[in-house]
């Protein structure tokens, strides 16, 4: 295994993160804080409890997921798209690195950044809302698993995209709506029965539900199902990336 290669990519990507701290960390933390102020502290105080949890505390896992999904996709897609756009991808393609090593570097860095962001938002939330974490190890595991899975998904988007618009279209047009409709701000048990069934086709429901379980010990979907669905999505993403590197699709002519 090319450990030096993995480390080089990882450090390169993390350096990019720290070069753009305002954009990559401060901005999502600020926007999520606004959600806490509006939905948690202001509107939340007028809302009733959901499954015995205050509304302000209830939305914390969903809001973290909202940022986590978008930032994971954005970090990883931008990380691999930029070398394609700038032409520096030639070096990666001509280097003695396997697709697994490339993934460990790029996706590892993107996921690290997302985990840092998730933890920062969690700490920030404490300033606005009181909450407890019932299963902290599970919470952290879900944070890492989701960051890795959606960084992997973002990496695929970055490989697929051949212009900046395509880079943005999936996060904006698909992921954000799915997150808003995936129970970030409500429990799916609050929906009419038909919509409850339709919502189960939304993969983000399982992420938010599993993450919320780690906080409060109860969720819309069983934790095993949530974990299974997330791992399943991870496996699909891995298979796609493996296929892309094996065939050279969008990478090698």
């Amino acid at each position: 295994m090319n450990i030096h290669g993995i480390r080089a990519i990882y450090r390169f990507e993390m350096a990019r993160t720290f070069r753009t701290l305002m954009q990559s960390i401060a901005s999502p933390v600020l926007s999520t804080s606004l959600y806490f102020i509006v939905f948690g502290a202001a509107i939340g105080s007028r809302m009733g409890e959901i499954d015995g949890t205050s509304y302000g505390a209830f939305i914390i896992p969903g809001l973290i997921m909202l940022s986590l999904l978008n930032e994971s996709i954005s970090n990883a897609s931008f990380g691999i798209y930029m070398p394609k756009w700038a032409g520096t991808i030639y070096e990666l393609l001509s280097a003695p690195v396997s697709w697994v090593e490339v993934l460990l570097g790029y996706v590892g860095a993107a996921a690290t950044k997302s985990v840092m962001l998730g933890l920062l938002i969690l700490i920030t939330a404490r300033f606005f809302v009181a909450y407890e974490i019932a299963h902290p190890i599970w919470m952290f595991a879900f944070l890492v698993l989701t960051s890795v899975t959606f960084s992997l998904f973002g990496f695929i988007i970055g490989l697929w995209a051949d212009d900046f618009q395509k880079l943005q279209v999936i996060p904006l047009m698909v992921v954000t709506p799915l997150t808003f409709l995936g129970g970030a701000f409500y429990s799916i048990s609050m929906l009419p029965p038909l919509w409850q069934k339709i919502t189960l086709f939304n993969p983000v429901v399982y992420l938010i539900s599993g993450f919320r379980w780690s906080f409060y010990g109860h969720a819309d979907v069983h934790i095993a199902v949530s974990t299974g669905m997330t791992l399943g999505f991870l496996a699909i993403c891995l298979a796609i990336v493996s296929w892309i590197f094996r065939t050279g699709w969008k990478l090698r002519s």
Partner: protein
Amino acid sequence: MSHSAPPVPDAAASDAIVSIRNLGKTYAGGFEALRDINLDIRRGEILALLGPNGAGKTTLISIICGIVNATRGTVYADGHDIRHDYRAARAAIGLVPQELHTDAFESVMATLKFSRGLFGRPPNPAHLEKVLRDLSLWDKRNAKIMTLSGGMKRRVLIAKALSHEPKILFLDEPSAGVDVELRHDMWQMVRQLRESGTTIILTTHYIEEAEEMADRIGVINKGALIVVEDKAVLMRKLGKKQLTLSLQQAMERIPEGLAGLPLELSEDGLTLVYTFDTQSEETGIAGLLRRLGEQGIDFKDLRSSESSLEEIFVNLVRKPKGNPA
């Protein structure tokens, strides 16, 4: 003179650091960029690949380096199959691309460290310092690449390619957009690299560059390697010498007594050009001068000239394949 396509090289050639066999590339649209390329690149040599735009030079380099997939054929680099044993093959290769693709926001030193690590080599500050000093980049080591001139960026790309101490260095149009001084510096550096044992393959549009540096010349045209030869041999075999005579009096046509000789008369009838074989022991000049005297043709000046590599190259790519000379 006829010159057949290069024969399939001996696979067991012990001095070959890159061995290419029956290599072909057909792009998705059906365009055949490379056709049946067979080539052995000798360890430690400087090979210049010449060819017009779109001839297939960059495609060939890109396949060897792993950027483009070959449609058929095999390539071995430093004894390793570039597909099945790609790690070892690629670790031996450094590539300086034609375009100035750089990480604009990175510093020079950071991008070199990245390149070295990417190619699986542990940190070696002393080596990176040497590379930067050799390329007159040491003072710029902390500068962001975006602040450098085009020539400096070209040096950075060379430094990146050398950062992992490759045995084989590909320089794809290294002099494109580079001023004369930097070009000469680069030639000097390339010679030093060769002396240290690095094999260098360069593509260039500057025939002067190939003539100045290369040990061997390969010419690619329309995807086929139409000739690969030692530079001196190529110039001797495919070059021609000419004797130009300035006549005292204009002639309307070449006299009957000089028929059969390779002579050309200028339009104004005042210059006679005699072309002779550079490989032949007997140039025929003495016979020509004797026959001129017999015909009573006086001349006031004569001078001889030899084909440049540029003329040889132009001749090669204009002629149909299999009859390059």
